[in-house]
């Protein structure tokens, strides 16, 4: 057991767990934040995607010890009211079906837009191929990422340079 301190969705957080315990299970079981999903446990499906210091990571293979002192952002903290451009676009286009993978899809998309405000289809393929959707919402995801890019551009007066996350 070890005490690990980090920032979770902008607030100081401290947990007392095994240092090897993956961030995913700390979020879900220790902290009761179930928006982040378990899909494969091997970073193969992307359902557990969260941001660590602004970069998309797979929380299922991230030991909690490596999170100490860093900023973790989960779906619960992406916006207080589903107002993030990615959430708006997802809602506008009704992207989710079963919805289980969508927290991970949204966090991956938000990180992509944070780094590249106007991603091409090839950019989307490269990043989003890490996130499986068995319902096959891929066409909606692609459209919604382009739409979120438009929303961001409009809200930044047409000069968006990133910073989506």
């Amino acid at each position, binding site marked *: 057991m070890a005490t690990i301190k980090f920032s979770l969705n902008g607030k100081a957080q401290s947990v007392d767990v095994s240092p090897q*315990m993956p961030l995913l299970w700390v979020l879900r079981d220790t902290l009761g934040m179930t928006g982040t999903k378990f*899909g494969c446990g*091997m970073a193969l499906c992307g359902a557990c995607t969260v941001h660590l210091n602004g970069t998309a990571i797979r929380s299922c293979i991230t030991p909690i010890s490596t999170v100490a002192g860093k900023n973790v952002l989960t779906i619960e903290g992406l916006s207080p009211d589903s107002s993030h451009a990615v*959430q708006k676009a997802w809602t506008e286009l009704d992207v*989710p079906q079963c919805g289980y993978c969508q927290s991970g899809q949204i966090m991956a998309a938000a990180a992509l837009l944070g780094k590249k405000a106007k991603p091409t289809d090839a950019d989307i393929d490269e990043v989003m191929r890490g996130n*499986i*959707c068995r319902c*096959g919402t891929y066409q909606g995801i692609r459209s919604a990422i382009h739409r979120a890019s438009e929303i961001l551009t409009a809200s930044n007066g047409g000069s968006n340079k990133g910073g989506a996350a």
Partner: protein
Amino acid sequence: MITVRKVDRRSFLKVGLGSAAGLTIGFALPESARLTAQTAGSRVFALNGYIHIGADDTVTLVLAKSEMGQGPMTALSQLLAEELECDWKRIHTEFAPVDPKLYGAMQGTFGSMSVRTGWDPMRKAGATAREMLLQAAAQKWGVDKSQCRAENGTVLNTANNQRLTFGALAEDAAKLPAPAGAPLKSPGDFKIIGKSLKRLDTPLKVNGTAKFGLDAKLPGMQYAVLARCPVFGGKVKSFDDTKAKAVPGVKQVVQISNGVAVIADNTWNAMEGRRALQIQWDEGALANLDSAGIRKMMADATEKPGAVARKVGDAPAALNTAGKKIEAVYEAPYLSHAPMEPMNCTADVRADGCDVYAATQIQTAAHQTAMQITGLSGDKVKIHTMFLGGGFGRRGGADFIQEAVEISKAVGIPVKLTWSREDDMTHDLYRPASYTKFTGALDAEGWPAVWHTRVACPSFAGMRNGVDFAAVQGIDDIEYGIPNIQVEYTKADPGIPTTYWRSVGYSQNTFFTESFLDELAAAGGKDPLEIRRRLLAKNPRMLAVVELAAEKANWGKPLPAGHARGIAVVNNIGSFNAQVAEISVEKGKLRVHRVVCAVDCGEVVNPQIVEAQIQSGIVYGLSAALKSGITIKNGRVEQQNFNQYEVLRIDEMPVVEVHIVPSHQAPGGIGEASTPSTAPAVANALFALTGKRVRKLPIRSEDLA
């Protein structure tokens, strides 16, 4: 801390429902946590088993169907709301408890039935409730009911423009007898049915608040994982839990019927404990089973005649006199469902009751399983349906529910059982493998004259007259006008557990039949579209989707160099769809560029959900066509996770175009409609491109040149 509220029926209200809805008693359901927050202090009045209205005008629609992405939460709400005339923005939904009186003896979600079976009762329930609200308003105002009109959650007195909200009328309405034969709208008057209203579940699924099975949490709950024998049918011989119990956080280790459970203070510690378990297995009768042996068993089964599933004309005699015969063997592997949410279940077994929180497709099976294990009566066992992180047929099984209930019973506390991805993939109930032999012959003009099929496949739906209907569906019901047809079935079951997989028998059989029809077309020098046109001449709905898909895909028009098209059509679940796939082979890799799908699913409730489901089914079909297969070695499944059981990812997603045939025919299903026709459309395109016929899925790199 997010917890799932335990819910109990709070009160019963005798409502005396109209026989139209087939119901006799309505009852008030408890408010959900969400509803409670918004209706604090209000009472909820039941107008029937599907509708409750709060004094604050909140309309709660009770869903006896599971939401796994296919959209019943929204579509069934549209059916109710169309007739109820409520305010769409005030609608909330709740999943129904198990109640055979209200929701039938097999309460569940399977066979793409939600809209098909809900079309009448949901609209009648809405209309009946609307009439009760109108009557209540008429009595309150002392006017004739004909003077009152329901609109947007209110009743209007058309003589003086006075209005009362549904909430203000609900208590009085609930005391009235339900009228029989409440009038239903004609399709021309629909305002909600047929519109792409936004899904009701989307807001919960873009911010992490939707509660799936795996998100259940109860006070005092602990976390379990289960070690199962890697060989199907194997049992625990002995185990040593010394090291497992030494893992920090591990509380208990117990043996149940399916294996050895480790219970800990969180899922991770339970998994660590399981890694430390030492178990001796009795691997049982299947310990030497492998895929080659299974294939031989099935191939041998097709050497002799099987039970006849369909007979038209005299195919064996016609084959004896036929000139050139076209023979082909088609094969499909076992498949895992691999929903994104692995199996799981939370159970709380007490002396006086049992609560089960589960992402289940069949509530009745969950209920009966829990009753059997606990010995409790039905009214003491509550099934709480959560959102399903994908189902595809897998969640019709109750194996994961049985395990959780057994564990909770053994340890006497609430327990959440989580399956790892590896558990899920190696202990699925699989889509069965099939080995199917076709023999065909042509007439003098080159059109099909004989169609003979021998299917060898496990029985996974139940035998009748020697035939498993699921194993032959998609073959014995082909609609092609061929004068001599014979379809035979031989059960060949090596013992791998099986169940339904999205589109059931059609999932493999439509690949077989639509590919073999293409073989007959090629043998007779016919165009794949032309042969379907001719042989479907007496089936206008099949023909119409074929024509529409061909037209929208520019069938027959030039394509870029190295591209080719293939076509396939299917009639399943009461709907019809044809697909044209456009493919190329680039750098030794098959690329599906575009799939054009024309679908006739009768009356459409929500076009956007129909389109999304068609896309969804095509992606599911493409994974099976291009990627996935389960193989067996030493009685074990070889694939453990998504690196070994690959599925389609976004970079391989084709452009999918969906064209819906306008129709006022009875609604058909949609969730499983499009999966069957994708693989044959792709394989037929590959033949058009390379001249090489693929007869075994998934398509491998050696099939491409």
